[in-house]
């Protein structure tokens, strides 16, 4: 029984002579399907990369938990009664104001000479002001934008609005916010029971008051776009 004889016989063996029956075409179809299948994307992570990723995740989570609490001290809920809640958002007590004077023209009398709100800015998506904790104030209707008070003194903003009630009668309401120096917030706007869902609300006037001497700038339909800026600039020049 020489190895050469055995080798020759094995090399001459065909599936048929060995009693092996297999479907070549089906086998090819299987192979073709496997060749055409897109290889699954394999992500190879070394231990170092995995450790680095875990560390990064840990640091990110840590930063995420710490950062909003810092921000919250600057992002205060503002109520109509002028209370600025620090860190804790309290339900907003919206009051229906006495009918305001819609379309009230702004007059010099309404504007105090000491108004210093030139730096009152809206801070929508302003990265410099960080991330605001939106979840904690989500129970209330509020302005879409955060307003940041960059002045060294508190600023009061009062939005005088007209809303259509269920009895089709327009009603004037006001929302007032007081922003302490260096904080940002939103003007709350709670819904009322007698107001239809999705009832149209129009802002008739905005009253901005800075400082403690009750001087205010009123912006309404009669105000020119640059009215506020001009007034503030004039006051500054006078001061």
């Amino acid at each position, binding site marked *: *029984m020489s190895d050469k004889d055995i080798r020759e016989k*094995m090399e001459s063996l065909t599936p048929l002579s060995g009693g092996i029956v297999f479907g070549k075409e089906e086998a090819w179809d299987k*192979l*073709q399907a496997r060749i055409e299948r897109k290889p699954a994307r394999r992500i190879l992570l070394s231990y170092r990369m995995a450790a680095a990723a875990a560390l990064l995740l840990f640091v990110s989570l840590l930063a995420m938990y710490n950062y909003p609490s810092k921000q919250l001290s600057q992002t205060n809920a503002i109520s109509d009664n002028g209370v600025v809640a620090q860190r804790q958002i309290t339900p907003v007590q919206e009051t229906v104001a006495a009918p305001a004077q819609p379309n009230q023209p702004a007059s010099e009398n309404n504007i105090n000479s000491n108004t210093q709100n030139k730096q009152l800015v809206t801070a929508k998506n302003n990265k410099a002001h960080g991330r605001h904790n939106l979840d904690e104030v989500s129970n209330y209707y509020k302005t879409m934008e955060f307003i940041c008070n960059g002045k060294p003194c508190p600023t009061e903003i009062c939005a005088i609005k007209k809303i259509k009630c269920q009895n089709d009668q327009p009603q004037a309401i006001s929302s007032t916010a007081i922003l302490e120096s260096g904080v940002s917030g939103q003007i709350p706007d709670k819904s009322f029971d007698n107001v239809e869902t999705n009832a149209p609300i129009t802002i008739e006037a905005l009253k901005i008051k800075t400082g403690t001497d009750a001087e205010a700038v009123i912006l309404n339909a009669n105000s020119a776009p640059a009215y506020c800026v001009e007034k503030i600039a004039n006051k500054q020049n006078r001061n």
Partner: protein
Amino acid sequence: MTEQKAIEGCKRDDRISQKYLFDAYSDGMLVVCMRYVKNLPDAEELMLNGFFNFFKAIDRFVYNGNGSIGAWLKKIMVNECLMFLRKKDGLKITEEENAGEIAADDGIVERMSAGELFQLIMELPSGYRTVFNLFVVEGYSHKEIAKMLGITEGTSKSQLNKARVMLQKKVLENCR
């Protein structure tokens, strides 16, 4: 289509060229796999794995004339089979005592058909059959077999001797 053209085609991922090589070599490679794993569905799967790896690594293949494709494919198939056996049964090969002298067979094997001999080889235990196939049919040395299977050269030799004796007995029984 020549083999060389088919190889060039395969390097361009041409299905017709791949089919040409598959048709030409699949029968032979299935027999190679059958010699190691016995079971037809397993052998077919291993043969397909082998061809898949062959086409995947075709860029590294250098055509050196007739026989080079077959030799390369056979190496791939043998590796696939050994991996499969290691995973499936752990391919337990232990050193055994020498099985004794192999009697002269008076040319019995020469008179046997390839199919008959194949069936007798298939009856050998897995460890014997693997070493026998690697040494006698594939032509690997004991050193190479020892390295491939993770055993000593002595174990490879003793397994081969046992396989020879057992096969001899089976051949003689078959002739009676």
